[in-house]
């Protein structure tokens, strides 16, 4: 039986879809069978980020509506053995799927896959409720901006209210130099407010923009910092103890490395 993980944030544009794609690709690279579900009906993106847009025949609403079998709608990734995508519909809206249908869908997917990762839409309305309906675990993505952290806080409250306890945090697009100069929220500032476990920190990286536009997850880019960050996160999801990557020289991370290790 696989695990169903929802990737959510509240605010748009913080990197939910990029994170979903990279975690999926990273887990598949470890030999797991992974299904990615794009729950952002009406604004589908995950297929584009994965470079699979031109293979879509059926989508999630065709499955929940009974127009096709789940297997027909799942698109096999072109690079990673074991990685599959269930795309969102582009011509419908969030009401095309109900939370109960999502639950049933997740149940069906977890029979066949080790990990089911759901890309949640921005917002806290029905799209969000659909996306979390069938999930056992949640990953909250935020960026070091006050508005993004505020929305992440709201989302964590809503997740807790929906019995999705202990969400894990990914801080995306951090710029160590700006943090050092006091121009950007630090990891500690963010953890201080959100008070949830940190799963990983992804530095701002041009390689992400390039890889996203090419439809190739950056996690497979051995040389990029962000790729390394995603590979570390993947190993932590698998249950390995991986120390936090040093974002730059000077021990910025050291204090909260200790926190991650549980020494505080």
């Amino acid at each position: 039986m696989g695990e169903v993980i929802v990737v959510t944030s509240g605010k748009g544009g913080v990197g939910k879809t990029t994170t979903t794609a990279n975690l999926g690709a990273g887990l598949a690279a470890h030999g797991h069978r992974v299904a990615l579900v794009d729950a952002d009906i009406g604004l589908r993106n995950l297929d584009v980020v994965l470079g699979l847009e031109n293979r879509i025949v059926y989508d999630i609403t065709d499955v929940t509506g009974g127009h096709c079998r789940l297997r027909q709608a799942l698109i096999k990734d072109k690079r990673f053995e074991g990685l599959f995508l269930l795309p969102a519909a582009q011509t419908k809206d969030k009401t095309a799927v109900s939370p109960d249908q999502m639950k049933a869908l997740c149940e069906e997917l977890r029979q066949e896959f080790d990990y089911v990762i759901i890309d949640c839409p921005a917002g806290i309305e029905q799209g969000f409720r659909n996306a979390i309906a069938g999930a056992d675990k949640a990953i909250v993505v935020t960026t070091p901006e006050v508005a993004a952290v505020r929305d992440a806080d709201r989302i964590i409250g809503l997740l807790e209210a929906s019995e999705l306890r202990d969400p894990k945090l990914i801080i995306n697009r951090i710029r160590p130099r700006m943090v050092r100069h006091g121009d950007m929220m630090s990891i500690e500032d963010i953890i201080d407010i959100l008070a949830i476990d940190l799963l990983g920190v992804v530095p701002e990286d041009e390689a992400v923009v390039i890889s996203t536009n090419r439809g190739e997850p950056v996690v497979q880019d051995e040389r990029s910092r962000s790729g390394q960050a995603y590979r570390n996160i993947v190993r932590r999801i698998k249950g390995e103890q991986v120390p936090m990557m040093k974002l730059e020289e000077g021990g910025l991370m050291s204090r909260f490395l200790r926190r991650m290790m549980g020494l505080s």
Partner: protein
Amino acid sequence: MGRERLSCTGEMVDDNTVLIQRTLRSGQKIHYDGNVVIIGDVNPGAEVVATGNIIVMGAVRGVVHAGAGGNEKAMVLAFRLEPTQLRIAGHITRPPDGQDLKPEQPEIARIKNGVVTIEIYNGERQG
């Protein structure tokens, strides 16, 4: 907490108190007719409204309103008092613009001589 301890002037205050053992996150709101004690934080975007006193065993970063029914003797006490906005009875205050002072000890906010006054809380009752 007994009635006497809560009442600085010796008058009876509302002894109706609720205990909240979690952090209030953005979008969450507590509205209570009485005193509120929170073991946790009040995050930005969260709101606590009480007709009595508010005590937060953590950081207050959201909006707190004590004495919401008009009780001018109500107070707000927090381990770290850095609210978005602080109201006591009909008085509305906010931190001064452009100052990013982080309190490092518990503080108490109450009305003194008609203005909301914030002082370091030293653990003793002061009139």
